[in-house]
């Protein structure tokens, strides 16, 4: 695994993968949306509003998935000091925060016609909201330092602390809600999901997950290229660019691995 932590190896590996992954994302989401919006039956109680679920559930899944990914990247960056793990953790945070926000927004759009209110202090809603706060705290902390390295390190520690805390928060919010449970709420987890609805749901979840990897690769590549430009500018390589093709690719490698080799 450590082999892949080199930025240049990452770039070489993701180069051929990226178009396939992007294509798969487009097909999965297109198919998922077709099944979700047209080819699936309406719910006998919820009517067409049930279709919001096909966006809502995958978004909730991605919100949690990204946080776990961020914590794992943070742990890797603290233990092995991989520069790539840092960049992955940083790149994941805004994606996860967006999915969590999407989950909250679609949830409240669904709640208005179903529950008759935009927001309920339900245990799940509240824990998702707290997850969003954790994401925002991470993003704010990472960007609060003049030295991006220090920001990433602090962020990694916070992501780990948060990952330990998330189950405790979840448990305590569940407890809190059973204490203050309002009279009656239509719960989402009534009967099991019908097979005709499982297909679009699975497609959308897969599509969202591969969308995350596409965006992650793009963001990491952007960050790597920015760093490379900075490194090249600092070392003045732009001024004396050799005509030699071999020398050019050697410099390319040098620029990418500069931080990894430190």
């Amino acid at each position: 695994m450590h082999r892949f932590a080199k930025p240049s190896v990452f770039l070489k590996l993701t180069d051929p993968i990226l178009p396939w992954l992007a294509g798969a994302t487009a097909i999965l989401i297109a198919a998922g949306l077709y099944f979700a919006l047209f080819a699936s039956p309406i719910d006998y109680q919820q009517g067409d509003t049930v279709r919001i679920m096909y966006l809502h559930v995958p978004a909730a899944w991605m919100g949690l998935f990204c946080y776990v990914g961020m914590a794992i990247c943070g742990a890797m960056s603290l233990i092995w000091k991989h520069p790539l793990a840092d960049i992955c953790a940083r790149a994941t945070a805004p994606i996860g925060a967006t999915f969590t926000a999407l989950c909250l927004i679609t949830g409240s759009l669904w709640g208005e016609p179903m529950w008759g209110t935009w927001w309920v202090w339900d245990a799940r809603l509240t824990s998702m909201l707290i997850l969003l706060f954790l994401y925002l705290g991470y993003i704010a902390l990472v960007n609060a330092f003049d030295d991006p390295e220090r920001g990433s390190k602090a962020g990694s520690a916070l992501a780990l602390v948060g990952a330990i805390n998330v189950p405790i928060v979840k448990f305590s919010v569940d407890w809190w809600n059973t204490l203050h449970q309002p009279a009656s709420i239509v719960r989402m987890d009534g009967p099991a999901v019908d097979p005709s609805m499982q297909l679009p749901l699975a497609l959308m979840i897969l599509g969202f997950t591969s969308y995350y990897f596409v965006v992650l690769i793009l963001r990491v590549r952007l960050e790597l290229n920015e760093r490379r430009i900075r490194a090249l500018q600092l070392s003045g390589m732009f001024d004396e660019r050799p005509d030699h093709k071999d020398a050019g690719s050697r410099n390319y490698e040098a620029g990418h691995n500069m931080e990894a080799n430190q």
Partner: protein
Amino acid sequence: MNGFFAILRRDLSLALRQGADSVMVVAFFIVTTTLFPFGVGPEANILARIASGVIWVSALLAAMLSLERVFQTDYEDGTLELLTLSPVSLELLVLGKVLAHWLTTGLPLIIAAPLMALMLNMDQDGFITLMVAMLLGTPALSLIGAIGAALILGARRGGVLVSLLVLPLYIPVLIFGAGAVEAALLGISATAQLQIMAAILLIALAATPFATANAVRQAME
């Protein structure tokens, strides 16, 4: 252990000589609590109903606002760097600083809490539970908050940042702290909530010094 007591004595005497710090935390707590009757109206029933929550939220905010001074001044004058370099384990020193922080902020808050509970018309059945819950909860607040205080060393706008980092992590303490008082007021046993708070405190005591020491070392790199 000598290092632990030395740092505890140093931080305590520093805090006592500039006594304003502790007084300020209590004053903030009292003023914040006093704002609520203006916001929700002076009806005794409503105030009694929300008293436990109001006291806990105000205590949370007061504990959070005082976090900055755990490491900030030592960071600025270089003391923290020497502490990091010293042969004594940094985790122990961090624990000493956190204990000093709790003795100068958490303890005064516990003493001030029944007074505010009285003013908010809370039923007297809940007083003992409130104080026990705060005795278990406020050390956990200091321990968890110290991580945030160490993470923001050297950051821009650290004071605002620490609230965003630490407040979500405070939620479990708030839930069980307020829940314990609520249970006592309803005449139910609050043992379950208090036990969970003790568990949170023990976990925090075992785990947070490592995270905090790690964050301090990062700030020194």
